[in-house]
């Protein structure tokens, strides 16, 4: 019985508040916009991080191992000799087929191509690959032209390069340094990072760049994701070698680490700071909402309505305003930014990485939670004041 009475009171007060809302539209709008703005900024920044992670995630398989020189954080600074390469590919845990171990020693360099959008140059990875490289990429396919012939100055370009950069039409020749290369094919690789690369035969690249018999990285197909531990144990403890073994997924995750940390840091600071500002705006709104209804609240309390229903109804109104703001902010960002293509420097590979702002449902929910919290914080003090206001003071306003 007691509970029903409380619920009834609560409903009555809430109904009164809601009916009253249109007259306070202006002030309420302030809280909504304030909180909505914060959510919009937060979701925008997080969606940048999501997009970045998505671009790299697509590329990370856990059944492919990446073996680099111990201490190298990225392909550019790694270096492995022929002897080391030969020892590595024989490690147990790596898949073999009729032709031998499914492993590809690769060289990673960077060349310059003009972007179609701006006309200015940007870094593009130029990778020398072994014959087994296609087998190690998800869903590798030649979608136009053909594969390069070993030993020739021929290259194939990834789908992403073909779309983003100029001078790479089929049959076109491009000059890098003193060498001329012909573009003979375009390939796709399941949407992964490889599609932002240009490939050629590692033997040719080695010769041109005078790398002797070395490679920078060895990619190897694992029997299963669990086999990684086995390979790592064998190779990292081999006294002839000094390598670090990671799964492709872990490797790419590491690459995005810096940028993701930066986004998280900056994003959180910004969201907190803006949140404080939004809370002040919400406090303004809710205090004014409460004071405009002092008389009504006092009357209700004189009639016997408890303090709890009053407090709860104020909190509810504040939370509602916050949620509306959160929804509006999230929807706005979704329609404005979702899918928007941008690119930035990938610190790990030191070249441009294209990504798309990705507004996921999880992000929107995060935004909503935050808007709810902001609303509640903004409603707490005014709610307490309304609930604890001496009845006589309120009635005097009549």
């Amino acid at each position, binding site marked *: 019985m007691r509970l029903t009475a409380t619920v009834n009171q609560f409903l009555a007060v809430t109904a009164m508040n809601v009916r009253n809302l249109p007259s306070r539209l*202006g*002030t309420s709008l302030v809280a909504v916009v*304030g909180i909505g703005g914060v959510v919009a900024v937060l979701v925008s920044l997080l969606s940048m991080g999501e997009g970045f992670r998505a671009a790299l995630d697509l590329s990370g398989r856990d059944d492919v191992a990446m073996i680099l*020189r*111990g201490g190298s954080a990225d392909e550019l600074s*790694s270096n492995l000799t022929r002897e080391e390469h030969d020892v590595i590919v024989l490690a147990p845990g790596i898949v073999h087929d009729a032709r031998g171990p499914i492993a590809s020693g690769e060289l990673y360099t960077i060349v310059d191509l003009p972007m179609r959008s701006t006309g200015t140059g940007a870094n593009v990875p130029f990778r020398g690959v072994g014959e087994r490289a296609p087998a190690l990429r998800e869903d590798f396919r030649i979608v136009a032209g053909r594969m390069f012939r070993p030993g020739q100055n021929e290259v194939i370009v990834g789908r992403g390069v073909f779309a983003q950069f100029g001078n790479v039409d089929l049959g076109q020749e491009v000059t890098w340094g*003193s060498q001329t290369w012909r573009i003979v094919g375009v390939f796709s690789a399941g949407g992964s990072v490889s599609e932002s690369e240009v490939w050629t035969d590692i033997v040719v690249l080695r010769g041109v760049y005078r790398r002797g018999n070395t490679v920078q990285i060895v990619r190897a197909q694992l029997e299963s994701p669990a086999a990684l531990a086995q390979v790592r144990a064998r190779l990292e403890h081999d006294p002839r070698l000094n390598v670090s073994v990671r799964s492709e997924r872990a490797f790419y995750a590491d690459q995005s680490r810096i940028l993701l940390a930066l986004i998280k840091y900056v994003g959180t600071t910004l969201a907190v700071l803006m949140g404080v500002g939004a809370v002040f705006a919400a*406090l*303004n709104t809710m205090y004014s909402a409460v004071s405009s209804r002092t008389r009504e609240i006092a009357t209700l309390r004189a009639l016997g309505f408890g303090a709890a229903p009053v407090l709860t109804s104020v909190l509810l109104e504040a939370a509602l305003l916050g949620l509306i703001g959160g929804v509006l902010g999230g929807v706005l960002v979704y329609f404005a930014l979702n899918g928007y293509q941008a690119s930035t420097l990938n610190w790990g590979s030191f070249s441009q990485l294209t990504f798309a702002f990705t507004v996921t449902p999880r992000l929107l929910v995060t935004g909503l939670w935050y808007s709810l919290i902001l609303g509640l914080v903004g409603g707490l003090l005014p709610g307490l004041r309304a609930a604890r206001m001496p009845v006589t003071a309120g009635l005097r306003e009549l």
Partner: protein
Amino acid sequence: MIALARYLPLLAASLRRKRLRTFFTVASILVAFLLFGLAESMRFALQSGVEVAGADRLMTMHKVSFTQLLPASYESRIKSIDGVVAVTPQTWFGGWFQDERNQIPTFPSKPEAYLRIYPEIRLPEDQKQAWIADRAGILIGRSIADLFGWKVGDTVPLRSAIWPREDGSETWDVTVRAIFDLPNGGDTRQIVMHQDYFDEGKQYTKGLIGWYVIKVADVDRAQAIGRQIDAMFANSPAETKTSSERAMAQSFMNQIGNIGAILSAIVAAVFFTMLLVTGNTMAQSVRERTNEIGVLKTLGFSNPGVLGMVLGESVLVTVIGGMTGMLLALWIGVQFEPVLKQYLPGFRVPPSAFVEATLYMVALGLVAGAAPAWQAMRLRIVEALRRD
């Protein structure tokens, strides 16, 4: 203007009317301008990174890619060009210590040329001489010394992720001979090694280096000299591309993306919200004071005078909030600059930002207060007095 000062007590008193409301409004504006101040500090710091890079320093790299090596023989030819003060080769050593995650930027260079090219480096004379004399000696930055606790005279096993030694090991034993500081800001997280020691000791690619850093006597001739260098090596197996350090820093920033635009967009969104907050506060304030405004008019305050009064209140609110926010940003910058100096030299609010902020404060106050002020102006005395 001075005469208007007499109205200040009246304006201030009006704001005290609803203390909480004024406080919250001022607080939100404070946060908005704090954000603005911090954003401008960030922008300034990023730009400073570019400024700190010398316009009188050039970098010559392999034309195809900076991952390619250049012949060491280019050094004397570059040095012979008129207007070149000093040249040093450098290579990316890929240094690390103890843990492969402790990556330390390490550059084999020619010591005397290096010091001449980077005059902003400060180190004691005796240490300088000791370093030049010891082939296996290294010059380290203050933050490296602090990070690992290295002192002058310590021999450290520096490891290279890229360059093994002739005997196959990748540990290079070097001795700390000098520690440098950068009093005007900059990255002291680096190690400079002797090029000769590096070239003799490495297993392969002897006689090849990564890039050249060149100092020119006359900044205005920098571009021309750069072209001259590239022309010298055109049509050779290793063609070059020379650009100024500053241009490189700028294009690096550009590759990261248009951070400036993002910052501006965020700040604009925040200011728009502030406009709403302040506008709403002023509107409420005027609505509540209809009667009082009527009284002022009966006393002889003119309509334009009342307009001015409301606008004055509005601007007073935004200026108080804004100035406090900017000062807070300034204080934060001062507190954090030493910490950030390594990565972001010059993290502080530039004077130009203060000027910009003041304009925004005033504009915000005027725009937010416009509609309520207009209403107050147009209020008819008889009606205003009739309302309670």
